[in-house]
């Protein structure tokens, strides 16, 4: 990450603009590693400014994949701050990104959730999930949208 990913200009700019970054050394001390519940490095954890855990990212990521993860984390943060339209927009960007890979259907799922949290409309929720069901029909995220209507999932 230090030699390839963090120095990449787009990654550096994204981190500087939206993230307060810190490095925590735990692997010199097995007890610290146990307490921190870290099994492997790289192990990145993102929290909201109010210390709500947002996402854990494990393993090396090349610049394009880290940029997608960072956008996804920003979307989750916007959702936590009740900025639903902002969250929906960021999740949509991830779902449509060429490099999003398996994160795309997860983001498409959250597009629906962000809209639902904004307006509470169940029909619009299922309309918003239709692209997920059509583009990634076998994904676990599409499966999570196929619950009996009229009941809590």
């Amino acid at each position, binding site marked *: *990450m230090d030699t390839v990913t*963090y120095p990449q200009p787009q990654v550096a700019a994204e*981190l500087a603009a*939206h*993230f*307060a*970054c*810190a*490095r*925590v*050394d*735990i*692997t*010199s*001390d097995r007890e*610290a590693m146990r*307490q*921190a519940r*870290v099994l492997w*490095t*790289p*192990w*990145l*954890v*993102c*929290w*909201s*400014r*109010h*210390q709500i855990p*947002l996402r854990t990212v494990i393993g090396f990521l090349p610049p394009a994949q880290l940029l997608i993860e960072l956008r996804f*984390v*920003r979307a989750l*943060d916007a959702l936590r701050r009740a900025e639903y339209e902002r969250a929906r927009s960021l999740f949509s960007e991830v779902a449509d990104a060429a490099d999003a890979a398996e994160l795309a259907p997860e983001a498409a799922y959250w597009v629906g959730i962000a809209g639902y949290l904004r307006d509470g409309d169940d029909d619009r929720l299922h309309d918003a999930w239709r692209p997920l069901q059509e583009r990634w029909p076998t994904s676990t995220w599409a499966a999570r949208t196929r619950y009996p209507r009229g009941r809590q999932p």
Partner: protein
Amino acid sequence: MSQSMPWLESLEAALAHAREQRKIALVDYVKPG
């Protein structure tokens, strides 16, 4: 990325810094060196 400190103090400082900066905290757990 900032310098390493004992892990818990470092984590708490990172979260406090993020709150002050009104940004998302990103903590990278790393091997020394």
